[in-house]
């Protein structure tokens, strides 16, 4: 495998399976006394085994959120991370502005229910968009059937993010900015409304309808 001279392509090479992921957070180091025996073993392993190179987008500050980083990577086009990150921060700002405006204009009784933190809104909205069960195409006897299939966590997260992004890119008015479209869609998903949640429900209904083919799955 050739490595170019100017860039170190270590991250994209296939690491040996025993390489561990880097943990940049400040709380990674815990004193020995507070660990259970299994965790002590893990800690021992960390001192001995090699660790993968850290990404340049990971920070040790507590403001670093892996879910948001993943979403930014998915939104990125042609490697323009600066633009994707800018859109993400503008989206968070817009969500916060809308919620805080609502908060300040509402009477004291209703203020407790309004969620102003854009990060919790984002996390909750993503949760509401994640499908529980998916469909896979299985070929049997010359015909292919849509078979309901359990999904791994990574796949569910990926599907939720993908649906959000495609929904905002394709089905909205051409002249609105991406951050505006995203914030509207996220706020709707937070309230369990909107097109993405509808798509998830449609998938669930299809899976429910195709229940009979569940036995075609062999894995």
């Amino acid at each position, binding site marked *: 495998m050739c490595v170019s001279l100017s860039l170190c392509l270590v991250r994209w090479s296939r690491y040996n399976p025993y390489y561990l992921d880097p943990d940049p957070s400040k709380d990674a180091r815990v004193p020995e006394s507070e660990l259970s025996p299994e965790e002590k073993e893990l800690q021992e392993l960390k001192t001995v085994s090699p660790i993968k190179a850290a990404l340049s987008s990971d920070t040790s500050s*507590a*403001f670093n959120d892996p879910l948001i980083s993943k979403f930014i990577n998915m939104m990125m086009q042609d490697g323009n991370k600066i633009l994707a990150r800018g859109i993400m921060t503008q989206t968070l*700002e817009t969500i*916060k502005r809308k919620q*805080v405006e609502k908060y300040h204009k509402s009477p004291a009784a209703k203020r*407790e229910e309004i969620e*102003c*933190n854009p*990060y919790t809104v984002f996390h909750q909205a993503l949760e509401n968009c994640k499908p529980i069960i998916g469909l896979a195409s299985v070929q049997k006897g010359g015909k292919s059937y849509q078979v309901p299939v359990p999904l791994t966590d990574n796949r569910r997260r990926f599907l939720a993010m993908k649906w959000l992004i495609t929904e905002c890119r394709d089905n909205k008015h051409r002249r609105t900015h991406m951050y505006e479209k995203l914030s509207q869609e996220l706020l709707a998903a937070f309230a369990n409304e909107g097109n993405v949640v509808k798509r998830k429900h449609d998938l669930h209904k299809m899976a429910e309808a195709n229940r009979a083919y569940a036995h075609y799955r062999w894995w």
Partner: protein
Amino acid sequence: MNLHKLSSRLCPTVTQKFRHLQIQSRGQQLEAVGVETESTEQNPLSVFRTSEQDPTYHSERHTGQYYTLPAAHIQKLFPHGLPPRFQLQIKTFNEGCVMVRPPALELISYLKKADYSKPPLRYILYGDVGTGKTMCLSHALHYCYTQGWLIVHISDAHLWVKNCKELLPSSSRPSRFDQPIQASQWLKNFKITNERFLSKIKTTQQYVWTKRERTEKGQPLGELVDQGVNRMKSSSDVVGAVLRELRLQAGGATEGEGAFKLAVAVDGLNALWGKTSLKKEDRTMSGGAILTALSQTGSLFKPQSAYLPSELLGEEGFDNMEPFVPVSVSNYNEKEFESCYLYYLDRNWLQHSHSRSEEGKKELIFLSNKNPSILERLCAFL
């Protein structure tokens, strides 16, 4: 800790509870406030707010504190002129709060002490990008407005000089170009700000706009302004006429009711001596003041690190503006930063749990270098 100093200055009994209040969430904050019985302020958290709403009475003991701009004043005084992000902030927080800072206080004290029978003093607010020059200018303008001055406010001179959508060759002077849209927009805003003066001031000479339209001598200024708003083609000439009239009449102190003080505020002054030049500021004026702020952000062909008057104005501009009183605006000091941080906490703007902790605050200081605009942009998504 600075918090300790701040709180102990105003309300000694609050010190122990203050840290406690700081870190907990909003619901628990309200409970703790209820427990506090012997507080000298109405609300112990308003260390960063002042109840003094009139800029005339702002003094050094108010530095670092926020005062609220009354909504009616915002509508009248600032139809244009406030920075766009600040306008967004007013809309979000449902109130407009401005921090009292030393450069603005300095400016207001000069305005109070100046002698108005002589030609006006010029003040230039200069400073690095995002340090608060336009906000200080707005603070001083609010003072002028409460004192009853007539305000001529050019919100951004760069708008008049570059990226013009429509250019017309001027009818009054052959080598000049006009921008009708900007001129009529400015006249509309001028009308909103200075309603009560428009009927009192009379024109001193006759103006001929076209073959059929003319404004006679002795007509109220309001008509002149309406003429400019309705007829786009001659609006730039109307602007020139309005400025000339105001200049001639500003010092008329002999007639008791006709006397008024004129404040000319220009933001982005360096645009006037840039590539395209508009009318120059003339010196034949008395009974008023000229307040200006430099702005690097819109200026053409100037490097980003240039912020001193000599660099941004250029030689021609410097000679024209001389002599002037320079007022320097810099980043927040620690007390002002504290105040800003507390204000955002109070308005429920800092939502991320880490930003409410001590370490988060240190990170904010590090990332923004206590620059007001960068801090604002950082806190927007945190």
